[in-house]
């Protein structure tokens, strides 16, 4: 990150990073840093208030992104970034909460939270860096590892198909769903900017190279080879039905903005049901019948 500075050019991205923590932990050719560049440009473009921006992540290589951005950052437990972020977002409506984490974290171990967050529609932007592998722990198969791929725990090739993430979050109710690859830096930036401006549960998948632990075992070359592969194989189809965008080995990678719809977010819905504002409730409590469940005693 220091090369531009060394030759006397100020890189505006640096103003948004914790430069004392750079260089990052990421490998040469890794795609995560590329997504961060797009993200910071989206922050600049949308004039995002950095004081109110909160980055939340789980565990993994991508879980370290938030720690390099110069805002409040919560590095939570494995798979639980979304529920932590839900708490932040509900308890302080001024916060602009972004979950930035990996596929293993968000979709495998944290998959249940992903589904319910999309359904619940709390104000959250989730950026899922999909490198198709558990990278930080040494390259084990995830729910996003393409069928038949080699990984350290699938030495005979994975026997499970990978999950089509856009279809999953679309079905669960996300109001914004897009997928790009690390090759599509400009389109990614535009999507991130659009999503930053929107309310409710928004989701962006970014397919990124992991030369160290995914490509090496699958004879896919280095980071540059992955970029070339993305360029050759991807096809932009904005508005494509998410049931058509599963990624199959060797076939087209459908990218684009798939979903952009309106649905009242959780708090707006709650407030419209309960009254104009919290103060009113304090002074004049609504007549809510207090009901206690009976229960069968088995649960």
């Amino acid at each position, binding site marked *: 990150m220091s090369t531009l500075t060394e030759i006397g050019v100020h890189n505006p991205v640096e103003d948004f990073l*914790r430069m004392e*923590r750079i260089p990052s932990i990421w490998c040469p050719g890794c795609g995560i840093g590329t997504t961060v560049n797009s993200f910071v440009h989206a922050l600049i473009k949308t004039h995002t208030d950095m*004081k*109110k921006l*909160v980055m*939340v992540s789980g565990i993994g290589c991508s879980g370290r992104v938030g*720690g390099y951005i*110069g*805002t*409040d*950052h*919560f*590095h*939570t*437990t494995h*798979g*639980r970034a*979304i*529920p*932590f*972020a*839900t*708490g*932040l*977002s*509900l*308890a*302080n409506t*001024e*916060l602009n909460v972004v979950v930035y984490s990996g596929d293993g974290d968000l979709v495998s171990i944290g998959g*249940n*939270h992903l*589904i*319910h967050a999309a359904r619940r529609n709390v104000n959250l932007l989730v950026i899922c860096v999909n490198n198709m592998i558990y990278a930080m722990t040494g390259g084990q198969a995830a729910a996003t590892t393409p069928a038949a791929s080699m990984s350290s725990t699938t030495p005979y090739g994975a026997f499970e198909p990978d999950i089509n993430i856009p279809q999953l979050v679309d079905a669960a109710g996300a109001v914004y769903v897009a997928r790009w690859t690390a090759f599509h830096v400009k389109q990614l930036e535009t999507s991130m900017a659009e999503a930053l401006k929107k309310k409710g549960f928004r989701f962006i998948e970014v397919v990124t190279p992991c030369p160290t632990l995914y490509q090496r075992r699958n004879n896919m070359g280095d980071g540059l080879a992955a970029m070339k592969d993305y360029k050759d194989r991807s096809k932009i189809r904005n508005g494509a039905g998410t049931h058509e965008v599963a990624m199959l080995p060797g076939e087209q990678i459908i990218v684009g903005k798939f979903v952009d719809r309106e649905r009242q977010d959780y708090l707006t819905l*709650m407030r419209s049901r*309960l009254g104009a504002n*919290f*103060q009113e*409730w*304090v*002074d004049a*409590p*609504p007549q*809510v019948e*207090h*009901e*206690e*469940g009976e*229960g069968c*005693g*088995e*649960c």
Partner: protein
Amino acid sequence: MATIADSIKTHTKLEHADQRAVLTGTHFMNGDAAACEGALAAGARFAAGYPITPSTEIVERFASRAPQVGGLFIQMEDELAASITLQGMVWAGQKSFTSTSGPGFSLMMEHIGYAAMTETPCVFFNVQRGGPSTGLPTLPAQGDMMQARFGSHGDYSLIALVPNSPQECFWLAVKAFNLAEQFRVPVMVMMDECVGHMTEKVVIPKAEEIEIFPRRAPSKPPGEFLAYGEIGEDLVPEMASAGEGYKIYVTGMTHDKRGYPLGNAEAQRILVGRQFEKLRRAEAELTLIDEDHMDDADVAVVSYGITSRVAERAIQLARAKGIKVGRMRLQGVWPFPEKRFREVAQRIKAFVAPELNMGQVVLEVERCAGGHCRTIALPHAGGTVHRPLDILAAIEKGAQA
């Protein structure tokens, strides 16, 4: 019990509860409801939970009450989620809690560790039922006492309080939030099915009679403030919340004073050492024992929760027989009040420790007794309470020792 010990060595000024959320008056309510009212009085406006018998009434009531005072309850998809959603609420600047029982408590363990490591002040209510596994969903036990202390991996310390009546559920809920803020630790309120479901008189005072320990605000502006570096004599760091411009970095990894991950033995020694030491230093203040007739006692009955109320009958019967028996009812179990137990062990013949488990807190009692007196365990697998006569027999045995 409203008063916080005078020994608070901090610049933090105590406040009073907000009357708008305090249900001042005399009520007839169960322990779960009283715990909920205690949480509201203490300033909790947000909670996350997942339903589980016999704790659910706490959040059912909160779901109804919270929107009336500017807050909300959110039901999460499981206890893994609930136990960290509440921590997001805390870092957003609020006081928050969850409530659960055995199986849910097991799922929450990782996040109790996260709260300890990140020094997130928060409260977990566990209304204990028979276990292991699904066990006895509607019947009492006290089988999670060791789990509360040691259930998450790694070394950490926390506070656990144990009420024995709906009235005490109210007060110990208030105290739990206060201690959480004072020491920046997760605080467990270890109820049991009997205490949670019994309905009794609960008197809730006016807000001005309820002292509140507010969040320790940063004393320095952004740029100068270190997220884990502004530490007073009591070893508890000040706390900034998200959105205040402090650019806080919070991680469950071993971290330095800035909160940045630092993976080495020295950083671990400093961090974990301080986190242990902050509660060890406060031992006197955290010794919460309701004692009676301990001056000349030959036998001390050590109990907590519903068991303490059964034990009380046994103590009465023993006294009627002329046995010098005293009461040591634990209101706080963790950190274990070691010093007091070591003192008492020097001059009594026996501790008698009935509890609704196969022998958990009694292990601490026996350790502190250090062979100076007998320790008589009265294990019980749960599902109902002890018979007072069984406790009486143990007292008689102890008096002969």
